[in-house]
């Protein structure tokens, strides 16, 4: 900020500020407002923290929250190592680079609801290539009736869809490492594992932090894909937080609890991102 003592620049930011005010700040304030009141036929009662209390004791929320955490951590545990592994396996130079990158990035280019549809069809045991093949192989698989299968389908879909993002970020991190590091490691007799552990991983720390934060937030807020594939079922087995929230707000018009829930949801994500960020920043910077 120091570099631009010219205050005229602020005017250029004004449109964005207005946009953000309308798209984020005002709705957020509305939500806060709703969360503290009860709406009954056009009249508003102030209820204080009642919705929050009610929610914190709701089993449905606890279930959704638990499922959400298991889902996000499973997905992260698969996507991060897999993404790094794929990035390591990609060629470093030559014409193959752009070809590989395009192929890897393809899933990222598909709209989310289409991703859902693809997997919804792919997994069907009657006409879907995946589902049919599994059943032909003698593995009983049906994501509409078996909750484990439903989970598997959604996790695999999420991994398929988003690992490429981790790959691209990790690859960018790898490309930025000067050759001298690899040469020195060779001369020091370092194994491939040591090169990874002591050169590649520390040098990728920055980009991996970003990847982890992005993937955590996205997976924690996942909505479209499971909605299209399983609709949250069978039972509530794949009903994650956002879907539960939607049901509460749009399905039952419980605006008060839904608003309170949104705020809790928002805070959870904020807290986790902060914790991740601090934890990763701390690695390698340790005590002198």
């Amino acid at each position: 900020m120091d570099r631009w003592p010219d205050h005229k620049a602020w005017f250029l930011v004004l449109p964005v500020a207005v946009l953000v005010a309308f798209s984020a700040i005002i709705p957020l304030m509305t939500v806060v407002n709703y969360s503290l009141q009860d709406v009954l036929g056009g009249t508003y009662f102030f209820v204080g923290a009642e919705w929050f209390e009610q929610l914190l004791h709701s089993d449905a929320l606890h279930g959704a929250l638990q499922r959400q955490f298991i889902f996000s951590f499973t997905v992260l545990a698969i996507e991060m190592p897999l993404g790094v592994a794929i990035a390591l396996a990609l060629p470093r130079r030559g014409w193959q680079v752009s070809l590989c990158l395009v192929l890897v990035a393809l899933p990222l280019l598909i709209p989310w609801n289409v991703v859902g549809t693809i997997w919804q069809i792919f997994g069907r045991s009657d006409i879907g290539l995946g589902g049919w093949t599994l059943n032909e192989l003698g593995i009983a698989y049906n994501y509409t009736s078996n909750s484990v299968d439903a989970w598997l389908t959604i996790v695999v879909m999420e991994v398929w869809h988003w690992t490429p993002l981790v790959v691209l970020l990790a690859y960018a991190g790898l490309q930025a490492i000067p050759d001298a590091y690899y040469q020195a490691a060779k001369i020091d007799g370092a194994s491939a594992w040591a090169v990874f552990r002591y050169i590649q991983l520390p040098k990728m720390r920055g980009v991996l932090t970003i990847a982890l934060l992005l993937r955590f937030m996205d997976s924690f807020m996942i909505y479209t894909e499971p909605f299209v594939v399983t609709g949250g079922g069978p039972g509530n087995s794949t009903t994650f937080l956002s879907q539960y929230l939607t049901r509460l707000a749009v399905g039952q018009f419980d605006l008060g609890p839904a608003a309170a829930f949104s705020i809790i949801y928002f805070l959870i994500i904020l807290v986790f991102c902060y914790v991740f960020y601090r934890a990763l920043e701390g690695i390698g910077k340790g005590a002198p």
Partner: protein
Amino acid sequence: MSRIVLDQVAHSYLPHPQTEADWALREMEHVWEDGGAYALLGPSGCGKTTLLNVISGLLQPSQGRVMFDDTDVTALPPQQRNIAQVFQFPVIYDTMTVAENLAFPLNNRKFDKTYVKQRVEEVAQMLDLEGDLHKKGARLSADAKQKISLGRGLVRADVAAILFDEPLTVIDPQMKWQLRRKLKQIHEQTATTLVYVTHDQNEALTFADKVVVMYEGQVVQVGTPQELFERPSHTFVGYFIGSPGMNLLDCQLEGKEAVVNGGRVPLNEAAAQRAHNATGRLQLGIRPEFLSFDARGQNGLPVRVEQVDDLGNYQILTVRLGGELLKVKIAEDAEPPGEDGSLRFPPDWTRLYANGQLVG
């Protein structure tokens, strides 16, 4: 430790080199004696880094053999050659402490724990790093990092040679002195073969027992700093070493004298004799340090003083002799010259070159 022999080594980065210019390294024979301190000196693009990488094994030469003592290592990768290398920009494992950095090459080779600890302590002491052993590498200054890179080479008792690729580039002048001094002392203590690549003549000359000067992919002279300074065997060496470089003047030979712009410069009899048998463009070369300037204009060829530069420890005169400009180095406290003076060429320091090659 071993003697390193380059046998008819040449390298080209192109698959099918056609002309001479396609070779980054032209065919050469060279022996690096065990325990020597060598500098590989030349301008960018002269092939010195290529040569270094051929020795370390990071690069396989297009032709020829690399021998460590009697073993042919041409096809061996760096980790099997027992070579250590220090790079231009310090390479340090950020997440490790200094001690872990130093132990890294030994741990990779699965040495005994107590031995590793002992070696690390020895090397840390040698490099004055004892106090920093438990610091994280990432927090150190550039010169400390560079010491650690060096330490990772020293820690291996079996290292055949330590190679340096312009290691002082990112170091401040004041620290350069200390690091170079450290390097010298370590060489005295360990007698490890050191090969030091640089474009900086000061670094090369102060560091090395033997300097290998490269130019356009070829070795043009190998010699002690003194030899390179006093008897450059090629005009390129004369120009490249010394600051300012050697004065080179076109001349003709008449008896025992060289004629420069009508002025006569006496030569050594033997030198003149050899020059008579040489063909091609004849040049007279003399270093600014060896010219003697006389402000009263009584001795030697008359010259006109064009410029005087006070460089603190000495002065540089730019003088005109006919159509040629010469540099003359005179003492800090020498009397200030007027506009005119004369220049004497001591025969013992006056060299003759034919087509760039030293003849006398």
